[in-house]
């Protein structure tokens, strides 16, 4: 019964979404307040309906109701509760429902927090959100309905794909979708602005928090997915340039560009047309990602099912929305007035360069991802574009961007002083080079490029602080006064510094792991030892164990340094009973930010086993950096400037006098 209520709620949601997609637009044209008022209330009810529907499916999973086909296909009564629940989105139908849930969540949030938006803009934005909602609700109901019953009901389910039975996967999709789908708000704002043919700095001020929130969640989601792949797949890699990874990475790159261009628009009213275009591109890439991942054109852990009608349906959604938005853009954009003139060397100029590099590298990733698909469709020839391609192109393109990142915040708006900015960075750049050279000396040589890479990371980390240092005027003013000024800086300044610093930490981790990781593949018998990264591992033997829905062979290793035991680790090979599917559970031990990674191979005839041991220096920096970026995002989001319409706090004249003019 509950499942049927969920199904019905989804159908109702479709009806409401249809109303919200039409009535407010008509209202906005005729200036009819009653019709426009349908948008916010409708969006909130819509969210309620989809939530109800999602909860109904969750309930079916929680109680293992195998009469629902979706539950039967992807769950098992013996699975731990957390995986039963995360199983809701561990399959095609459920994950699309989650997609829809988050889409309507964002509409509801716009309805709730958008009280101070002009009525027509709010009505149009929510209507555009509803168009997307209609498309995806139809998609779910027509091609991917999770509420279909089975008769007779099977006694036992088929289990969730074992590699998805992992706490990381329980949070990865929701986070990723919060980012991915969050960009729909930027898209809706862009389309609404185009419909109205009017756009100004206030528009950018409304869009920026949404972009920032989506970007922050997407950062978290991608980092989570990368960490999951690292420890769960047992290959020790953290990024494979797999098309599905690229699918989430491209909106991130474009979203990063959007974040920066919206800043220019908000402060200087420049780059209006470009920002609107970028907002459309970003969400188009999200839709493209959904298509690549969900349509089954790519074979991967994400392609749960390959049903051609689904692919065609999503492709249709993609073409309608992307094509429609671009057509609208081509028609309306010339009417948007551009403003704000600036010199090439200025904060705006730096942000334009940032946008240029980010969009070109997005295009590079897009080319590498789609080229094999296009080539196969056109000529039938099958090729693979792998990591070497992306490392070469994307890696090289990123270097100039990383070099200018600390300079941007130091340049003034309108007309900047490049020499002055560089002078402020000389010390930091010099320091970074010295540290890099010092490491080179300590490590007794090695690839010079790697040490330059490390220096680049350090330069980014220290460089991110330079802006704060000079704005607070440390070194010129007494420490206590400078510290008071530092505290008075807007939170967005800290957000910027943190995000840029996080980028530096990630770069540091990537360079360290790429250049200095060591890998040993060896046959081990009980009692044998192996050395890796200055640690010694002793293989203590194998043991069998039984989990709730799997059996495993576990190998135990004792890790010692200079003869003293410091840690021990289990590494195992599991067989999941229901699907008879083997998985490798790597054993991972952290030492500071570095890790030892032990994974098991095949048993040998003579009783030994193949063991693969990696030493991963500073690998945790990669994800630590993402966490810092994320914190930067949240700090920036809490800035008063972005809390549109929040009552302004008691003014502090003294502070305003001290704050440097921007």
């Amino acid at each position, binding site marked *: 019964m509950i499942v049927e209520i969920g199904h019905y709620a989804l159908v109702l949601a479709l009806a409401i979404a249809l109303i919200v997609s039409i009535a407010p637009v008509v209202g906005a044209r005729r200036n009819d307040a009653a019709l426009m008022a349908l948008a916010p209330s409708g969006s909130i009810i819509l969210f309620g309906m989809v939530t109800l529907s999602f909860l109904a499916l969750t309930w079916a999973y929680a109680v293992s109701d195998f009469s629902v*086909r979706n539950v039967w*296909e992807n769950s098992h009564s013996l699975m731990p509760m957390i995986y039963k629940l995360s199983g809701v989105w561990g399959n095609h139908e459920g994950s699309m429902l989650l997609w829809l849930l988050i889409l309507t969540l964002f509409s509801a949030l716009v309805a709730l927090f958008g009280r101070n938006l002009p009525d027509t803009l709010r009505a149009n934005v929510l209507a555009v959100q509803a168009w997307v909602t209609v498309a995806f609700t139809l998609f779910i109901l027509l091609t991917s309905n999770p509420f279909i019953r089975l008769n007779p009901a099977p006694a036992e389910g*088929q289990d969730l*794909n074992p*590699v998805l039975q992992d706490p990381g996967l329980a949070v990865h999709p929701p986070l990723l979708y919060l980012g991915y789908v969050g960009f729909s708000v930027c898209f809706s704002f862009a389309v609404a602005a185009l419909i109205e043919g009017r756009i100004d700095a206030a528009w950018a001020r409304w869009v920026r928090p949404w972009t920032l929130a989506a970007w922050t969640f997407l950062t978290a989601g991608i980092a989570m997915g990368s960490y999951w792949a690292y420890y769960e797949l*047992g290959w020790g890699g953290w990024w494979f340039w797999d098309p599905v990874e690229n699918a989430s990475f491209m909106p991130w790159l474009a979203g990063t560009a959007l974040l920066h261009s919206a800043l220019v628009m908000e402060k200087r009213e420049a780059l209006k047309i470009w920002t609107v275009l970028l907002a459309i591109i970003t969400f188009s890439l999200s839709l493209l990602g959904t298509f690549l991942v969900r349509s089954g054109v790519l*074979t*991967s*852990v994400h392609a*749960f*099912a*390959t049903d051609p009608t689904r692919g065609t349906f999503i492709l249709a959604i993609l073409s309608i929305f992307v094509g429609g938005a671009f057509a609208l853009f081509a028609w309306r954009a010339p009417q948007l007035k551009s403003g704000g003139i600036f*010199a*090439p060397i200025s904060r705006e100029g730096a942000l334009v360069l940032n946008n*240029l*590099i980010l969009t*070109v*590298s997005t*295009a*590079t990733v897009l*080319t*590498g991802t789609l*080229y094999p698909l296009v080539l196969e469709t056109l000529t039938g*020839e*099958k*090729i*693979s*574009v*792998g990591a*070497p*391609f992306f490392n*070469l*192109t994307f890696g*090289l*393109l990123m270097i100039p961007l990383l070099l200018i990142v600390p300079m941007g915040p130091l340049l003034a708006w309108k007309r900047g002083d490049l020499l002055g900015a560089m002078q402020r960075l000389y010390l930091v750049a010099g320091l970074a080079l010295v540290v890099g050279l010092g490491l080179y000396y300590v490590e007794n040589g090695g690839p010079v490029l790697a040490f330059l890479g490390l220096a680049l990371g350090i330069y980014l980390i220290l460089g991110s602080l330079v802006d704060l240092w000079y704005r607070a005027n440390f070194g010129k003013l007494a420490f206590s006064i400078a510290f008071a000024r530092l505290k008075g800086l807007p939170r967005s300044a800290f957000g910027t510094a943190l995000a840029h610093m996080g980028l530096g930490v990630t770069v540091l981790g990537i360079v360290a792991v790429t250049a200095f990781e060591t890998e040993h*593949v*060896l*046959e081990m018998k009980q009692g044998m030892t192996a050395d890796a990264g200055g640690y010694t591992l002793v293989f203590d033997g194998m043991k069998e164990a039984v989990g709730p829905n799997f059996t495993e062979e576990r190998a135990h290793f004792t890790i010692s340094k200079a003869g003293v035991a410091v840690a021990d680790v289990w590494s195992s*090979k599991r067989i999941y009973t229901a*699907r*008879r*599917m*083997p*998985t*490798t559970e790597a054993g991972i031990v952290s030492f500071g930010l570095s890790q030892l990674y032990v*994974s*098991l*191979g*095949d048993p*040998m*005839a003579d009783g030994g086993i*193949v063991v*693969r041991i990696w030493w991963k220096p500073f690998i945790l920096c990669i994800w630590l950096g993402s966490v810092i970026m994320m914190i930067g995002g949240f700090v920036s989001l809490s800035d008063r400037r972005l809390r549109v319409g929040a009552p302004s706090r008691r003014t502090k004249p003294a502070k305003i006098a001290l704050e440097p003019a921007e």
Partner: protein
Amino acid sequence: MTRKQKRMAVIAGGMSFILIAVLLVMFAFSQSVAYFFMPSDLAKNEVSPGTRIRLGGLVEAGSVVRGAGSTVSFKVTDGSASVPVSYTGILPDLFREGQGVVTEGVFTTSQAFVADSVLAKHDENYMPKEVADRLKADGVWKESEGSPTTGAKGSVTR
């Protein structure tokens, strides 16, 4: 410089960056793209030693031989021809005789294929798409290969 000249300089700068990116992409494509082959393709036209390719097919039954250390050799077949492959490292969990695989590597001589990666990933039903397409086209595909023991499931998920 006048403002117009400045603007031209900026546009030229942007264009040249894009041009560099395009050239880089073309260069990278020429360097690192691996074409996909099945054993019978290789029988028809030879691939020169040292060229990176992807070789796909089924792991021939009874051909897996474990050598010294973690070196494994096996044959990849598509029913009409087979190619011996050697690989050092840990094979993926789902590597089995009779299963579909995609290996990537180079021919060191005209006969010996040395793979540096072997893919057979993620799902027990997983058949690399390239392999499945070709096996179907060549008529070697058997329903049972795509949907093993669990019965009804195979037909539902595919």
